[in-house]
């Protein structure tokens, strides 16, 4: 059973460009969350997708957008890249339950460098 997978592993872009990162959730999971981890810091929640809709959003500008597909995979798009967008982007998947705690499983991340 494959866990959470992310692509690409590494990416280098220049300021002002746009980037798309991809995530495939763990088998059986229907919810995908994205986190940004800047160097030397803890991950910060960007947003979460469930049933192809953004369910929750953290404190990130509209340059950050996402999408979830019918097969539950997800994309994170960042427009007009800034140097400060350089970070490890982590995807986490979980199974939405009507009640209780849903453990999130993390992928290995995509390392984005903006020059």
């Amino acid at each position, binding site marked *: 059973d494959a866990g*959470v997978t992310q692509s690409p592993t590494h990416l280098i872009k220049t300021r002002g460009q746009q980037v798309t990162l991809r995530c495939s959730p763990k088998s059986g999971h229907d*919810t995908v*969350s994205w*986190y940004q981890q800047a160097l*030397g*810091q*803890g*991950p*910060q*929640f960007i947003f*979460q997708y*469930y049933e192809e809709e953004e*369910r*929750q959003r*953290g404190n990130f500008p509209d340059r950050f957008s996402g999408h979830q597909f019918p097969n539950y995979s997800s994309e994170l798009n960042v427009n007009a890249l800034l140097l400060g967008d350089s970070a490890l982007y*982590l995807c*986490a998947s*979980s199974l939405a339950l009507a009640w209780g*705690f*849903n*453990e*999130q499983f*993390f*992928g*290995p*991340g995509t390392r984005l460098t903006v020059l």
Partner: protein
Amino acid sequence: AQSVTQLDSQVPVFEEAPVELRCNYSSSVSVYLFWYVQYPNQGLQLLLKYLSGSTLVKGINGFEAEFNKSQTSFHLRKPSVHISDTAEYFCAVILEGAAGNKLTFGGGTRVLVKP
């Protein structure tokens, strides 16, 4: 809004010595508490979690943590570390009952185990 503080950014420790990583949180409502480990160039792996019940929680790889509600702390301990425990450790919280289970992380503690 909830926040998580990890009081030590780096903890050097000798092999087979004990280690304690400190975590304090602030929240106006009850929270679920977690410790994650991140090995170099990898995603996050759940070490242990506190949802309810016994305040002493045992996790994988010999780690344990104790929830102290009055001190709003959730310190992580291991009685004897191995070289392989060299990694970054993150404390995180989720607001109890919150939809989507958004994780809020601390800044991380880097553990360096020396031979």
